[in-house]
């Protein structure tokens, strides 16, 4: 096998000119495109949007949050899954003091939470980090991610510009940049920097909304959440969050257990996940009790919230007023879990779960006719 022969010196010279022309034109166009994207910066990776109203694109958390983490002024971070998206930065700042940024993202895994907080901590010391813990984020392996979350653009979670080419040389980003410059608002986005991911004003909350389409005997049929093991959850916590808490003793970490509706615990009971969940909560307490910079807040046994389905959009997602209560409790030191209260928190929650896992208890919880007596209970 041989290489085709070069046609000669003239062809070599013509080829050199051709190469220079083609590569020059290609690099010039790509360079101009990259410069345009860096200037407009629709995902705010290099600077905050100042010469146009910022665009927080619908469900683009994983692309925009690292930009906010790198460029927004703040000393307090809120990090959680979609249940924490209705937390306003200015509210957190007012209640907790300092400037805040909400870096929550839907279907977040523990490894993503770690990456997000590491990105925030890489640039500046933080006064406070509110980590809202979801049981499901600790499912699977230590680096587990949900497929529906889409690919994670890791290249945006650092300050290395040389790996940013998928951002700078992307037709999708180029088109977004052009739409910003041309004033095209056809894409779905919000522009309030205090509420980048807020959805509480566009959905309905209420009992009917929560119960819609639910199979009460198999609640997970709709949500398809994975089974968890204590061993796996502990491994994920130890791998992803515990090192962060230990490595940044100058930062106060508030771990918060969010108030899911009581139907989430009924789902756990139906799937034999109650004990795993309670054991994991106990493990998190034991693993962090010696760390002076870590506190735990728990609203999961607050029946005034968890039993009022009017406060929920579905069995997991609560109204913005509950986000506010969770932040307030965290920063004002209410519902704090400590050595004196940890047993009582668990006892109360266990009792509530046992009660809801009975026909009468369920009927009371969902306000439906009691299947035994046919009587409406609420």
């Amino acid at each position, binding site marked *: *096998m*041989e*290489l*085709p022969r*070069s*046609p000669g010196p003239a*062809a*070599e*010279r*013509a*080829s*050199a*000119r*051709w*190469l220079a*022309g*083609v*590569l020059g*034109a*290609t690099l010039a*166009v*790509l360079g101009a*495109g990259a410069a345009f994207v860096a200037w407009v910066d629709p995902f705010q990776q290099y600077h905050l949007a100042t010469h146009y109203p910022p665009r927080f*694109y*619908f*469900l*683009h*958390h*994983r*692309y925009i949050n690292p930009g906010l983490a790198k460029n927004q002024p703040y000393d307090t971070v809120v990090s959680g899954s979609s249940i924490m998206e209705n937390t306003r930065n200015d509210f957190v700042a007012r209640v907790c003091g300092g400037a805040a940024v909400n870096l929550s*993202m*839907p*279907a977040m895994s523990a490894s993503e939470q770690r990456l997000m907080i590491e990105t925030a901590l890489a640039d500046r010391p933080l006064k406070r980090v509110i980590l809202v813990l979801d049981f499901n984020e600790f499912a699977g392996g230590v680096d587990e991610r949900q*497929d*529906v*979350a*889409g*690919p994670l653009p890791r290249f945006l979670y650092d300050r290395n510009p*040389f*790996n940013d*080419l*998928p*951002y700078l*040389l*992307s*037709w*999708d*980003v*180029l088109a*977004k940049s052009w739409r910003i410059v041309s004033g095209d608002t056809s894409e779905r986005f919000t522009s309030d920097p205090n509420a980048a991911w807020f*959805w509480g004003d566009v*959905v309905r909350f209420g009992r009917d909304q929560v119960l819609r389409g639910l199979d009460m005997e198999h609640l997970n049929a709709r949500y398809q959440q994975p089974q968890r093991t204590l061993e796996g959850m502990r491994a994920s916590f130890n791998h992803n969050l515990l090192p962060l808490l230990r490595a940044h003793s100058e930062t106060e970490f508030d771990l918060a257990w969010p108030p899911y509706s009581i139907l989430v615990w009924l789902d756990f009971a139906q799937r034999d996940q109650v004990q795993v969940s309670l054991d994991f909560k106990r493990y998190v307490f034991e693993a962090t009790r010696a760390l002076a910079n870590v506190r735990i807040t728990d609203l999961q046994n607050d029946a005034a919230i968890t039993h009022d389905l009017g406060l929920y*959009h*579905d069995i997991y*997602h609560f109204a913005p007023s509950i986000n506010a209560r969770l932040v307030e409790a965290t920063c004002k030191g209410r519902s704090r879990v400590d050595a004196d209260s940890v047993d009582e928190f668990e006892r109360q929650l266990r009792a509530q779960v046992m009660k809801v896992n009975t026909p009468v208890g369920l009927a009371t919880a969902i306000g439906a006719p009691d299947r035994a007596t046919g009587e409406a209970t609420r």
Partner: protein
Amino acid sequence: MLFNSYEYLIYFLPLSLAVYFLLGRKAAWAVGWLVVASLFFYGWWNPKYLPLILASIGFNFAIGRALHRRPRQSKALLALGVGANLVLLGVFKYANFAVRNTADLTGLPLALPHIVLPLGISFFTFTQIAYLVDVHRGKAQEPSLLNYALFVSFFPHLLAGPILHHSEMMPQFASATNKRPQAFHLAAGLFLLAIGLAKKVCIADPLAAVAAAGFDHPEAISALTAWLAVLAYTLQIYFDFSGYTDMALGAARMFNIQMPVNFNSPYHAANIREFWQRWHMTLSRFLREYLYIPLGGNRHGEWRTTGAILATFLLGGLWHGAAWTFVAWGALHGCALVCLRAWERTGLHLPRGIAWALTFLFVMVTWVFFRASSLPAAGAMLRAMAGANPNGEPLQEALRHGLAADAQTPALVVAIVLLGGVAVLALRRNSNAMAQDFRPTWPRGAAVAVGLVWSVLQLGKVTPFLYFNF
């Protein structure tokens, strides 16, 4: 590292070329650089498999040297070398498959070993088996470990072929002329690379979403959707694999290395033998030289020939993946070749148009086994194609369920599929033919620049959170 990635196109390839030609006057340095660069390329995805490929290279080089030095023991050494390579392939590629089937057959509660398939293991193992056989036959010998390492690891062919012969590569690597930059070959290589990149990124990737929309829910789609999905996959696999091969050949050409052609318009074939003479040609060559002919080929009567054909295709199918679907796919192609031989003995001839249509239809239908996740899934797809789902989803619904394809309209999808089909059928000259008589004209240059810009911009897709239940 993938050819269709920013890090390869913007950083790795230009840097590899520049340093290689800078070191070109010192041959050993240039070769050493290319080996290091190739191993870096291989380890980019997961460095933990670097020791495996290094051990494989070292072992096969040692066996090759021993074969050359001890001809009286060459049969035993060859058996040891080939056997060890097959064991390596068996452990990493087929252990899970074997354990799963043993457990299914016996009912024993066997635990599946947690083995991740190292990239390119099928290719670098077959390349080295061919080398050992060639040394045994006296057709090859390699005294330099560095040269041998380059022959195996040269990054353009490392992950997806072509499967090379030592004798066709080493004279090119040894040539001093080839270590000087040659603008003509750089230009021709860039031209071929641009064609391959556009085939992969602009045609194959959009087609993949259409194919997935059908293959992910075969029990729920209409006959028309099923046929469209299978046609989309038929075109996707060609544009994907041949595009990737074009990029490999283009990169090698930039280093002044000519690698063997792997695809020669396979969908123009008018019978199944011709198809295999045009599709993944270096694999066909390997299977023919190192399996079919040693099994007897066509020298021992029709029954032995039939057996050799079927064994070759069954193993060829299994080489593509550890699943019964690949075995079935190989078996169908083997049977088709046996039938073709029987047909040819009758002396009858079909008009070329009808022969082409039958061949294309057969190849297309058998891709169902190649793409389906299991034999039952393949069966469901074939039933859908036969109209078993009268109330099945039309294309629009199927695309909506395919998350990756949710941005595509049916009209766009049909346009992509039809354009892909027209491109396959209408273009009389394929990319290799165009690269073979390349001339640096400006219209061609403009097309390359536009193709490169457009393809590079398509690499960085922004894919937001895909599921929203509010």
